[in-house]
């Protein structure tokens, strides 16, 4: 099969724990991603993103001085962001519902709960590769579409211009 696959991809790991960074690097290496930059927190990661193209970001949530949520908001919304569409997988032990929702509302592409397994990480990457998400820009949010699926019996409200293009509204 032709195509470079992961070999030409550039990844960025944003994680304050050196052991976790090493594990994530090894798991990315296992699929052929060799060009990997690392940053210990969001602020440093933003600098890396400005200096070097990144096709995929794996980010922790709890970091100082800038956490993964603020980092994601900056990537998605800052005028200085080099790629507001870059896929961001948030990897965290903070799995409480309100934190997952906060990550979703910040604009993460995928959420992965620690402890991580190779299978879970690869499933999130496969999701990005196979089913890239549409992006939504609305008041107070820019990021991947937070509606994963369309409920067949959804009766509205219809808030997107596109909702009217292919939906009969009664």
């Amino acid at each position, binding site marked *: 099969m032709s*195509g470079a696959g992961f070999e030409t991809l550039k990844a960025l790991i944003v994680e304050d724990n050196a052991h976790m960074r090493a594990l994530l690097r090894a*798991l990315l290496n296992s699929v052929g991603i060799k060009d990997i930059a690392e940053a210990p927190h969001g602020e440093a990661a933003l600098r890396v993103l400005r200096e070097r193209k990144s096709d995929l970001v794996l980010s922790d949530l709890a970091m100082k001085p800038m956490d993964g949520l603020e980092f994601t908001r900056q990537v998605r919304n800052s005028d200085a962001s080099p790629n507001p569409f870059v896929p961001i997988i948030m990897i965290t032990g903070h799995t409480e519902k309100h934190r997952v929702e906060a990550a979703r509302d910040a604009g993460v592409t995928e959420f992965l709960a620690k402890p991580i397994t*190779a299978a879970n990480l690869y499933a999130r990457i496969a999701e990005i590769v196979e089913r890239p998400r549409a992006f939504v820009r609305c008041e107070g949010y820019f990021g991947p579409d937070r509606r994963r699926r369309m409920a067949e019996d959804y009766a509205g409200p219809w808030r997107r211009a596109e909702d009217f293009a292919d939906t009969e509204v009664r």
Partner: protein
Amino acid sequence: MTAAAAKQAQFIAPDAYPQMMSTQDAARAMQTLRSATTAVKAQLAMEQAAPPMKLAILQYVCELEEFGTDMERVFEKAHEIRGFAETAGLITTGRISEILCRYMDDMARIGKPADAIIVALHVSAIAQAARAEKDDLAMGEIVAAELAALVARRLTEALR
């Protein structure tokens, strides 16, 4: 454009913004993700990561014990332990850390201080589990269930 139209969300389809990789590369990438070779390499990576992580967790446990009633630091460290205890093969340690984190998070959300005795019990259980020579899953299940029941009772009391 009317104000209502301006307020409507703009929908950007995947083919309208730069993708992580081309369709051709994606097919190859999926083949790699699903290959047996990748699974073997990943398994090896996980196995190699476990020993240094276990050493790190033992260090974190010492720090956790030293933090005493400094709840913010206890929460941060317990969270860190929860994050990779299971990756290091310390399943019981991970489960008890998970219960402690959820308890402290729930108490913070309802605006009440975490009970120092409950926290100390968890810290002690985490330390014992991490330092045990073998991860005793059966005993770990019992301890975790007891602690979870205790936490549930205390949370119910706190919500009254």
